[in-house]
């Protein structure tokens, strides 16, 4: 009955429900990273080890979150936020070691922002999206980026904002629809019992006459 819940409680409920999307997205990320590492290992040994360590750490952590979800044990909000932060940091780390702006791994920011946008509150979304945009812009600028590539950097950042805003707007639309559906299903309260209208003088006289008359 989300419409009767207070705002923070509804946000928590949203976070817990949306955790499924986060977990699925993280499994996709982990599997893709493992496949790409196994099929085309074009990094130095040390970087490869580091990348595998990061991927396996994410996988283990995701398994823990999945186990919590399956056994219906509540996960702390802070843990969910930290896990998403770890995802973004892992992607940023991958981008950093693969050449900043020229790293092909930046595309993983988009699914990561997608899940954050449909699960987190607008405030948290703002924090995560602006941090991601700033971190990626710094990573890109820190590499030797060509002046001709600057418009494409702006485009990448703009699309990150687009994904985040569209996802969060959809989340709010769905919240409103759910509230409306819950309100429509609520049984109507019984009508208030009507008090008898006060009797007029003539009515009172008649009533007394009827009461005093003896039945045959």
């Amino acid at each position, binding site marked *: 009955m989300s419409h009767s819940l207070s705002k923070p409680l509804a946000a928590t409920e949203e976070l817990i429900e949306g955790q499924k999307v986060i977990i699925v997205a993280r499994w996709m990320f982990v599997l893709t990273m493992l496949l790409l590492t196994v099929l085309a290992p074009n990094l130095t040994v040390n970087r490869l080890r580091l990348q595998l360590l990061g991927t396996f750490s994410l996988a283990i952590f995701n398994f823990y979150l999945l186990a919590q979800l399956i056994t219906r044990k509540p996960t702390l909000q802070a843990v969910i936020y930290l896990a998403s932060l770890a995802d973004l940091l892992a992607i940023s780390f991958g981008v950093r070691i693969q050449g900043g702006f020229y790293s092909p791994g930046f*595309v993983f920011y988009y699914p990561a922002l997608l899940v954050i946008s449909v699960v987190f509150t607008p405030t948290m979304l703002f924090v995560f999206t602006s941090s991601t945009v700033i971190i990626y812009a710094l990573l890109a600028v820190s590499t030797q980026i060509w002046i001709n590539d600057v418009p494409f950097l702006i485009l990448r950042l703009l699309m990150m904002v687009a994904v985040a805003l569209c996802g969060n707007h959809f989340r709010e639309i769905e919240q409103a629809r759910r509230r409306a559906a819950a309100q429509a299903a609520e049984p109507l309260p019984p009508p208030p019992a009507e008090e008898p209208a006060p009797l007029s003088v003539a009515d009172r006289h008649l009533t007394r006459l009827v009461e005093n008359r003896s039945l045959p």
Partner: protein
Amino acid sequence: MKSTSFSQEAAEDIFFGQIVIIWARWFLIAAGGVLTLLATQTTNEVMGAVYWMGILIALNFFIHARYLMGKPANQMLLAAAGGVDVFIITLLVWFWPGPTGIENHLYILYYPILFTFALVLPPALTVPFTLVTLAFYLGMCVWETPYILFSVTSIKVIGMRLVSLVAMSGLGMFYWRIQRERRRASARPEARTA
């Protein structure tokens, strides 16, 4: 009775959700503005950008105005507009001056379009839409830069792009399904009081 309520629910999904598709297209148009202002060198390039942006602006203005008037687009119109988006992005990736095929950076415009399509339209439409988009992009990349078939690094790069595009669509569909179930649960009084 049940099928009527399901079809009504599907119509409501389109009715309420299409604004996110409209906003994604406005972002696409804004991206076109950035490209036109910062990445064009000649008058012909500016004019070329104005043509496709004009098509998108006219299309989105029409759909947005209908939405504001309380007469939102139906499923077929939204799907067709999504097709126009994908077609224009593919043309951009193909013909934009500079590097083409896998080297072109404009494929990122697919991301918000695929995502919002998956959020609003049913999976029966989203799955073919995603497959056609991926086929367009992959076909264009192979046509323009055939060497990618023989380069492990290029296959890795294209694999990352395709997987992340599928993730956008797949996660959008997954969220759509979760929301539908939650809405149905909210509408069942016995489920809410239990």
